[in-house]
């Protein structure tokens, strides 16, 4: 290249933001090369298997493991008696990984084996003899709160009625609980009595939300190994490696500094990997005892039986408004079926109360939840975190109240919808808010108003296929959620001699596309193509701290953190270039792998050359930066008030259905979604996220139903647990409202959970529009709908109740 040519080289401005960028892990996954935990094997590894309870609620009278121990190929057999330092796990520390004296649900872990093959481990389990004494089963949460109800966690006694020699402790697992109330939440703003007095219309209904589970394509698993110095290395699918590192240390009574977690690519999370489960601790116990690496993988049936569920909820909602359409108050009581132990499901009220208090402007709000112990499976966190349940109730009431005062339901919603700049009764501050745009856009694109009226008029006409259209909207955190003292994320960024970037982030990839979007944000700052970046995000020994993948926070929090590190790198590079080429820093920029003159795009120097010059000189320097981002949000106090997220996401979705009145079959024909996402970063990624979320919402609404009868799971398999299949997926029309959030990375807000939240509520409204029948209980399976159409569903009323 001649000198003159070099001088005239111009790099045109370009941006990665809003482009369709394929996920970086897609080629590996699509070609079957991704090495999930299932594909990882360590030399010398043993296989762990768990013996689960044969009973729902029973005392364990005796466990005989002698035959299992004697089986050739078996290395270790453990029961609670072998682990005297066992500590209770879970959100309420009410759960021993290996059960002590009593089983409380079908999935309960009694014993575990580590053996040379899975087959031997299985065979050994069959040789373990357990004698039980059955106890009465509580499978209905309403029974659990009746006076005199049997206790799920009484003060622990041994089989003979004497105290078990448990290590001292103050947790529920040690001391028991004198009632069946696992957790309670009470929130209020304003005065609902006053609100009710001002109301022209008051309605009250009970809604019932069922069990569903995550159905991750990759079943749960872990590999644990203690090295010769006693350090623990775990291959784990956790969504929250840093918090879990500390928690594992607590359960193992060891120094967290000696625990390292590597996350292989995760075959689906959706919230299921937010808690530590007994199998993980048991795997560690086995590895510790065997002094060999132990791998534990669930079968699909086990995945159903022993995974957390979405929180089932019984909810009575009382709402009021004035004739002019102004909302006056909302009063909510819920009974959460906590299951036998407490995981994150019990804490879904954190999110549910936000929807009740702040989705619409409501001057008076009163919210109560009691999460009660039963002998059912226990609920964990699941994409949407209570918001599907809350939205199901609230958005049906919006339609019902509009109907009661004779107002158009769109107008009614718009009248009460939040705007930017508002502070809600709960103290949430809506800096960017595209809610009204969402409502209007979804309504216009779907031709909601015209179809709504037409369908209503056609209801009585002959023919068994009825058409319906329904709308629902949602509010969800979109800028993290400060549920821990910190909601931050760290980044380390390093550039090499070829101007390639390694982005080391605390944020885990669980299939949501975070590594692609973070790469995009970094490359945008540094003017590099996406091919110039490598992401390291799965090893606690390398990556900086992050609170975990949850609350739709990664793009926002880890994105801001990555941008922070990239900006520091850019500043350093430009400072060096300015000095070397005798220019003002402000006049330079990075573009297309070059340092350029900002005004003209004229090339100053190739970035890689500049970096090499910097490195290979007397005062050698490398470009390596770090950044920690902490969002400007507030950790809520006991009153649950405060601006918990740095930004809030909004969406309105319109669902269209065909109801076959001969069979009760509901076919979803179209979903129109308008999402306030702040700004679209990776268009391909966000479309995928929204489409996937909509299908998850569709499954929740129509087909998925984990059937629990007297504590027994009736359908732990994909034949009878019905995920939505490809031909059922409706047409989708997705619109983005770009409200350009001031705090968001490039203006973006979180979107991970949003798309599944409204579907069930909108479907209920659509079925009503089609048939005149309102459905208060999920899911809308053909028989349920058929029964409702034929007046065979008595309306349930749960009398509001709150714990004393």
């Amino acid at each position, binding site marked *: 290249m001649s000198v003159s040519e070099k001088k005239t080289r111009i790099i045109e401005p370009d941006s990665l933001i809003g482009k369709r960028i394929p996920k970086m892990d897609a080629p590996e996954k699509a070609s079957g090369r991704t090495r999930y935990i299932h594909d990882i094997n360590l030399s010398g590894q043993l296989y762990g298997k768990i013996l689960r309870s044969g009973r729902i609620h029973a005392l364990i009278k005796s466990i005989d493991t002698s035959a299992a121990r004697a089986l050739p190929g078996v290395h270790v057999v453990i029961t609670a008696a072998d682990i005297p330092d066992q500590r209770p796990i879970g959100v309420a520390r009410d759960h021993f990984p290996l059960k002590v004296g009593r089983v409380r649900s079908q999935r309960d872990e009694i014993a575990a084996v580590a053996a040379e093959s899975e087959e031997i481990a299985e065979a050994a389990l069959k040789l373990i003899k357990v004698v039980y004494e059955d106890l009465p089963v509580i499978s209905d949460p309403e029974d659990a709160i009746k006076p005199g109800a049997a206790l799920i966690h009484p003060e622990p006694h041994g089989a003979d009625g004497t105290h078990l020699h448990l290590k001292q402790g103050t947790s529920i697992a040690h001391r028991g609980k004198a009632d069946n109330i696992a957790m309670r939440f009470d929130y209020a703003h304003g005065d609902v009595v006053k609100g009710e007095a001002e109301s022209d219309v008051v309605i009250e209904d009970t809604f019932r939300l069922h069990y569903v589970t995550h159905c991750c394509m990759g079943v749960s698993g872990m590999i644990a190994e203690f090295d010769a110095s006693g350090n623990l290395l775990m291959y784990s699918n956790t969504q929250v490696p840093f918090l879990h590192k500390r928690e594992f240390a607590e359960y193992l009574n060891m120094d967290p500094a000696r625990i390292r977690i590597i996350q292989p690519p995760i075959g689906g999370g959706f919230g299921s990997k937010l808690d530590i489960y007994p199998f993980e601790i048991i795997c560690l116990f086995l590895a510790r005892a065997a002094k060999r690496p132990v791998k534990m993988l669930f079968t699909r049936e086990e995945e159903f039986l022993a995974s957390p569920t979405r929180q089932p909820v019984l909810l009575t909602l009382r709402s009021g408004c004035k004739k002019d359409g102004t909302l006056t108050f909302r009063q909510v009581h819920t009974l959460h079926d906590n299951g036998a132990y407490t995981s994150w499901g019990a804490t879904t009220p954190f999110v549910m109360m936000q929807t009740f208090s702040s989705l619409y402007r409501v001057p008076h709000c009163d919210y109560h939840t009691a999460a009660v112990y039963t002998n059912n499976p226990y609920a964990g966190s699941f994409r949407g975190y209570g918001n599907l349940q809350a939205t199901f109730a609230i958005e049906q009431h919006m339609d019902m109240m509009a109907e009661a005062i004779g107002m158009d339901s769109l107008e009614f919603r718009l009248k009460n919808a939040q705007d930017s700049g508002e502070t809600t009764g709960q103290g949430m501050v809506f800096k960017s808010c595209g809610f009204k745009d969402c409502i209007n856009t979804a309504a216009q694109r779907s031709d909601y108003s015209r179809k709504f009226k037409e369908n209503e008029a056609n209801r009585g006409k002959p023919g068994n296929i009825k058409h319906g259209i329904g709308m629902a909207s949602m509010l969800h955190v979109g800028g993290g959620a400060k549920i821990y003292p910190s909601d931050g994320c760290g980044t380390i960024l390093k550039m090499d001699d070829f101007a390639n970037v390694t982005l080391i982030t605390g944020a885990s990839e669980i299939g949501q596309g975070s590594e692609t979007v973070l790469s995009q944000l970094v490359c945008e700052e540094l003017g590099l193509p996406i091919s110039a970046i490598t992401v390291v995000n799965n090893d606690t020994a390398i990556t900086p701290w992050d609170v975990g993948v949850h609350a739709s926070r990664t793009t926002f929090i880890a994105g801001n953190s990555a941008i922070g590190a990239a900006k520091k790198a850019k500043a350093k590079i430009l400072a060096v270039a300015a000095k070397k080429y005798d220019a003002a820093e402000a006049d330079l920029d990075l573009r297309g792998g070059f340092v350029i003159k900002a005004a003209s795009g004229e090339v100053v120097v190739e970035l890689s050359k500049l970096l090499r010059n910097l490195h290979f000189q007397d005062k050698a320097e490398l470009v390596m930066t770090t950044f920690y981002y902490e969002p400007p949000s507030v950790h809520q106090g006991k009153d649950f008030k405060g601006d918990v997220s740095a930004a809030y996401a909004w969406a309105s979705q319109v669902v269209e259905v065909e109801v076959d009145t*001969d069979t009760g079959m509901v076919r979803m024909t179209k979903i129109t979604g308008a999402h306030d996402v702040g700004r679209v970063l990776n268009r391909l990624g966000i479309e995928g996220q929204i489409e996937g979320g909509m299908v998850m919402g569709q499954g929740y609404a129509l087909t998925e139903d984990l059937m629990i009868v007297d504590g027994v799971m009736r*359908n732990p398999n994909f*034949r009878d647990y019905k995920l939505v299949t490809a031909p059922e997926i409706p047409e989708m029309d997705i619109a983005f409202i770009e409200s350009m959030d001031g705090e968001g990375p490039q203006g973006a807000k979180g979107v991970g959970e949003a798309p599944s939240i409204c579907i069930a509520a909108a479907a209920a409204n659509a079925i009503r529009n089609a048939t005149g029948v309102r459905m208060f209980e999920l899911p809308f399976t053909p028989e349920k709908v058929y029964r409702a159409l034929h007046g065979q569903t008595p309306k349930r009323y749960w009398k509001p109740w709150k714990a004393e």
Partner: protein
Amino acid sequence: MTELKHYFAPTSLDQAVECLKDGDVTILAGGTDLTPQSQAGRIRIKRTLMNIRHIPQLSGITLEGREIRIGTLATITEIMEHPLVRQHLPVLVEACNHFASDQIRNAATLGGNICNASPAGDTLIPLLLLDARVELASMPEAKLYRHSMPLATFFVGPGKTRRSLCELLTCVRIPLPGEGHVAHFHKLGTRPALDISTISIGIGGTLREGVLTNVRVAFGAVAPTPVRAARAEQALEGQKLDAAIIDRVAAIARDEVEPIDDVRATAWYRKEMIHNITRRMLTHVAQA
């Protein structure tokens, strides 16, 4: 655990039936029932696992005189695509169309569907409408022995048939339907693919000038076996399909079946669906 000791893949019918004499043999065809059922512990694999897929005599779909012979190994996909079946037995194609998914249809065999004897087996209803006979082979002495029986008498209960442990199902024989024959199949499940029938209905007969004769009505998933509905057949026989008769037959059909409650549906819903779908199917036939 299984007691499986031997795996055997005979290449002739003689070898296969010889092996069956032992009585302690599990027959493997497509494996789409056997694999999940044995893994779930619902059936036990016996001492010998015999894979019959390498026996040429068990395959093929052919016209033999006035009969169509479908080898036990014919897969659902083969049946669905075969010109003879498409031309003469469209109701069987209808059923295959609603069967599982492409992957399963490529592996699942007709013989497996029959021998598995599920009350919800999807090919069984059209085969009942078509007066199919099953042919069984065994080797009581040193010689191959074949006999056949109507499919309608083959089923005993869920997973139970009149096949003895020493017998192999070799093929199904279906008389060519005559002039004016109509038959339809409806599978009611909760989704269009990969579903077990909540109920299924087949209705067939000879239709001349709106009058249905030689009527066959069969129901799946409403009894321990797939069943013919004698009273509904009788009520339809020789009748002109008008609204009154359709309503009457639908009501008779509903009262005739005695389904159970299970994870898929309650007995009440199944009865309702037998009524509604029977009515819908007859209305379609009447209007066609």
